[in-house]
């Protein structure tokens, strides 16, 4: 079994899906000749030719919007937005066109497309190479939203996204691109969109996270384990739809929820999970559901690491939940 980084897993998924289905095309800024600024699409233009892997002009509206038209016309486009922060010049195409096409046409036209984007902080990228905009997508009916955290999941989820009949936003925490290698089967496998993964079983507290913050969450969990606490760790993997069942089952068992995400605090996925758990497990919670999140400020360059939930911050907050 090959061991791959997340970048390798993306490349493998794209390559396999392009071989399997000739309707799959890739495009975006720098994806073709250069193979992407992170080299996620390296070698694919050579392999599949310039009609299947295209460099687009520098316009996210053109990229996302063209994907809608291609998808409606029968292709299976995988568009790349170079950084999640740059989705905003194209977000009307996601919201007004991609998300609403099936609905507004009464199911006549659809937009089966994937928009890949490197997301999150921790790479000294400042305001515009660090943001985590998943809440915007999840708040907009008609989109699915995946945020990966492991190479194995990345391959299986990207393949599912490409085969999905809905527009899927596929978010790749850039600080994990080459952070770890893991065994990734060379053959075809799918991971369903909407299903969380239990990364660690436990009974004292449920830590729910996804994407880049899974790293600190798992580290914090290990430290807790050393201290004799037994946390359960859930990786949401999809944030729209998110796996309520998995989360509720776990919290019903532990009675405590700590929700961790590096996205800004207010009106976030973390808010949603915390509010839902608080509502549905009102009688089963031993402590308030608490969030450790990014802050409601532009992402700072100088305090790059401090913006995201640190292991210390997770542990401090977990202590509040556990001691409640």
């Amino acid at each position, binding site marked *: 079994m090959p061991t791959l980084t997340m970048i390798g897993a993306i490349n493998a998924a794209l390559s396999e899906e392009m071989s399997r289905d000739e309707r799959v*095309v890739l495009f975006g800024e720098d994806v073709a000749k250069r193979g992407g600024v992170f080299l996620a699409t390296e070698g694919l233009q050579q392999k599949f030719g310039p*009609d*299947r892997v*295209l460099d*687009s*002009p520098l*316009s996210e*509206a*053109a990229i*996302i*919007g*063209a*994907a*809608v*038209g*291609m*998808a*409606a*016309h*029968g*292709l299976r*486009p995988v568009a790349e937005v170079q950084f999640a922060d740059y989705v905003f*010049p194209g977000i*009307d*195409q996601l919201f*007004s*066109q991609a998300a*609403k*096409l*099936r*609905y*507004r*046409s*009464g*199911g*006549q*036209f*659809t937009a089966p497309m994937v928009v890949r984007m490197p997301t999150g902080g921790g790479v000294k990228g400042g305001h515009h190479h660090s943001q985590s905009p998943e809440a915007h997508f999840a708040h907009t*009916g*008609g989109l*699915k939203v995946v945020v990966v955290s492991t190479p194995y999941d990345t391959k299986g989820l990207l393949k599912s996204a490409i085969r*999905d*009949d*809905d527009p899927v936003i596929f978010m790749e925490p850039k600080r994990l691109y080459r952070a770890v290698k893991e065994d990734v089967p060379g053959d075809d496998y799918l991971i369903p969109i*909407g299903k969380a993964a239990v990364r660690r079983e436990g009974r004292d507290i449920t830590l729910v996270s996804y994407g880049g913050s899974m790293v600190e969450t798992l580290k914090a969990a290990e430290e807790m384990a050393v201290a004799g606490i037994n946390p359960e760790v859930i990786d949401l993997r999809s944030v729209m*739809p998110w796996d*309520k*069942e998995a989360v509720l089952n776990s919290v019903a068992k532990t009675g405590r929820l700590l929700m961790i995400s590096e996205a800004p605090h207010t009106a976030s996925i973390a808010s949603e999970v915390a509010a839902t758990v608080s509502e549905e497990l009102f009688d089963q919670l031993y402590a308030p559901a608490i969030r450790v999140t990014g802050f409601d400020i532009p992402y700072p360059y100088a305090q790059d690491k401090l913006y995201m939930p640190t292991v210390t911050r997770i542990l401090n907050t977990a202590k509040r939940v556990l001691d409640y």
Partner: protein
Amino acid sequence: MISEIKDKTEFQAFTPEPIRVLSDEGEWVAPFELDLDEATLKRFYAEMVAARMLDEKFIILIRTGKTSFIAPHAGHEAAHVAIANAVQKGHDWLFPYYRDGGLWLAMGTPPSEIFGQMLGNAADPAKGRQMPSHPGSKPLNIFTACSAIASHIPPAAGAAISMKLRNTGQVVVCSFGDGATSEGDWHAGVNFAAVQGAPAVFVCENNRYAISVELTHQTASHTVADKAHSYGIPGYRVDGMDVLASYYVLKDVVERARAVHGTALVELEVYRYGPHSSADDDSRYRPKAEVEAAKQRDPIIRLRKFLERQGWWNETAETELRAGIAHDLNTALEQAEAAGEAPAEWMFEDVLSSRPWHLEEQRRLVLEELR
């Protein structure tokens, strides 16, 4: 395929004056010979009259409270009929906008479906999801219109790129107003199509107003056609109230797009006789005299004069034509009305390809409330 293009070298891009074939009085003023037969010209005429009568019907729908919104298209009929006749129906793709009522009809959409959409009821193939005046039809490859101005331009570019990549022999024709050209997405979409050499024809129905904003406040470019320079594509400036000029230029440009994967911009100079929409009062921003002057260029009267000159039309034909259209529209409206309200359950369909738990919960909440 290239050999099939009829090369009307008379049609130059970036002409200082709009290209015309018929004068306001319906005289032939083009430097080439008529090569359309009587039946075709009569069809153009009938389609324009039907478009106008559809518009009149829309106005009645509003007056009688049967619909909540209309975007009057009287004055745009030549543009609509020219586009519909320039494309291969059901093969090429259209990306229209809300003021394309006449195009929707001329493409062959069953009027009962049009009225269904206008009523937002169970007769609407789009299930009452959008405001009235938002054309769309999968069987006819009419990409369902979206209210957000110019947001359909990048998707139109994408469909055309798909046509080119897969060499399907299809063409995209995408229409929009003059105001739309100011949106960033307009620029982004046209640029992407052009740089890919995608078979897309972008058609501006330039009525010189975006609601109340005059073209001189919209852009300082001399013409809309001039904007084509920005993308290295030809830009044609055409009298859009001259159905023959509009048709000839569009047909030519569409076939060229098909043959050589060419992108083009066509500006059709039209005028909207009515207010912007049923929510507008145009007397606030434009003088009545201007509207009356524009009506002197009326596309329907103009073609009728030409037909009469040819001896192909008379009052009897006119009466018959109008009676036939009136009957068809009335029947279609009755049919649409009979379909009844869009069921509440439709509300939670077609959001995604299947219904995740959260939509299932939300749906149940509404259905319980209605029970």
